């Protein structure tokens, strides 16, 4: 690729939850095509909130989010769907349809490319079915092709979710703690996969809790604390003990 697609500009975005919790607090960010950004921060810092805002899974309270210079916070209907199609998302809690088979879950990553009619009747093309199998194979889950998602272990479910995201052929991959429930081997595999997608030119934004992984994969590290952006440096300038600062409690005496 290297087509320059997959840029994300977050301009002065805030998000206040209906119950008054401040999820994001005037965030500004400018992510270039092909970056591998890792977002770190304490639990509850707003990492998930930020990713979800980028994909417009919830509306922000103020500010704008430009994806390849189009403001997703104002998109609607088909345009919005097409923007989303270009952003793959991997969720912290998998979000699989538990009662559907692994295959169907993975194929559902592709619906953005199908007419309603064809997808409804499961008329996926042969290529896509093969692509699904290939993606499952990549995360080592091909043998569970016809298994129902609720019969999988946590880690297995996450791998299915990753395979689903890969189906989208996106420009941007957002991953919310994609390796929280994975063993080190699968973790490495998944991170390598993300790396691989990144190498193909996709922009990758990952929420991570592991400093070690952040250091070894990211090209840029962003730190959140209590909804505020408190850290933003290219990897070359990051030193391990910077993390202590990011992970300081809001009240720890700044």
């Amino acid at each position, binding site marked *: 690729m290297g087509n320059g697609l997959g840029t994300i500009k977050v301009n002065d975005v805030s998000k206040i939850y209906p119950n008054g919790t401040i999820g994001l607090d005037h965030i500004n960010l400018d992510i270039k095509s092909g970056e591998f950004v890792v977002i770190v921060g304490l639990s509850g810092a707003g990492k998930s909130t930020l990713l979800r805002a980028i994909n417009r899974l919830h509306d922000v309270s103020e500010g704008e989010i430009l994806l390849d210079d189009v403001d997703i916070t104002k998109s609607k209907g088909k345009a919005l769907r097409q923007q989303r199609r270009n952003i793959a998302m991997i969720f912290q809690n998998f979000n699989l349809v538990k009662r559907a088979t692994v295959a169907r879950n993975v194929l559902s990553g592709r619906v953005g490319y199908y007419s309603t009619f064809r997808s409804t009747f499961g008329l996926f093309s042969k290529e896509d079915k*093969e692509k699904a199998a290939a993606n499952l194979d990549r995360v080592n889950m091909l043998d569970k092709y016809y298994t129902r998602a609720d019969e999988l272990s946590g880690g297995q479910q996450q791998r299915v979710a990753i395979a689903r995201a890969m189906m989208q052929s996106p420009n941007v991959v957002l991953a919310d703690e994609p390796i929280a429930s994975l063993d080190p081997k699968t973790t490495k595999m998944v991170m390598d996969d993300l790396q691989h997608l990144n190498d193909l030119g996709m922009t990758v934004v990952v929420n991570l809790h592991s400093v070690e992984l952040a250091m070894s994969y990211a090209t840029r590290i962003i730190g959140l604390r209590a909804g505020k952006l408190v850290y933003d440096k290219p990897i070359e300038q990051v030193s391990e003990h910077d993390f202590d600062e990011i992970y300081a409690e809001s009240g720890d005496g700044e």
Partner: protein
Amino acid sequence: MQKIQRNSWQKYGPYIITLVVVLIFVWAFTGIPLSTVKPQAMQVTKSIINGLFHPEWSYVYTGDGEDLVSALIETLAIAFLGTFISAILTLPFAFLAARTKKGFFTPRSTLGKLILTIIRVFPEIVLAIMFIKAVGPGAYAGVLAVSIHSIGMLGKLFSEAIENIDRGPNEAIVAAGGSTLDGLTLATIPAVLPEFMNYTLYRFEIAVRSAAILGIVGAGGIGAPLIFALQTRQWPKVGIILLGIIVMVTVIDFLSGQLRKRLV
């Protein structure tokens, strides 16, 4: 790619089931003679609609305690008591009938389900007669008939709600050394309570509308006036009663919606 095999049931099972279902429905449709709508039907329909749109307003309130308003209030009272009494009586049956363990034969749950089915199937009319014999005609008999009949319905819904919940929290309580009952009260009930309330409210709405039983028992609710108005084809009166029921059900629906919001 690697070939992934499915066994033959996985492959053909769905088709077989579909075929059987289709056949059943074909049979069902053959049993319904398509009586073409008669020319007179138009006339009847017209006079019904005409009546419904010219409700007999004078019936709304007459002050003698035998008008629409008091009938509706009495209906509400019967439905309310009947439903909520039955909601409480239902609990033990529901837990008895819930299948919480897998297995082909589960005697406890089967027994529970059978009891509930028998209660449910017992026609309201017969129940009503039995209660009239026991307590005499009137609203009291109505309350009893509604509450017993509701047990059968609610018990089924409740037990299925129990079967469907996430067992995780219950497991956590059990893992902490809690008894089955602890799991029930600390994890299961909080999880199913909103659903129970939901079904109870739902059942309450149905009870309000089950005018038939109330008319039969001489409960003084809206049942008898409605049935007589229908029998003697006094459509304007049917119209006003219907309007009353609609207003009442809408209000109940609104209130129960508010209540639900708070419960979830």
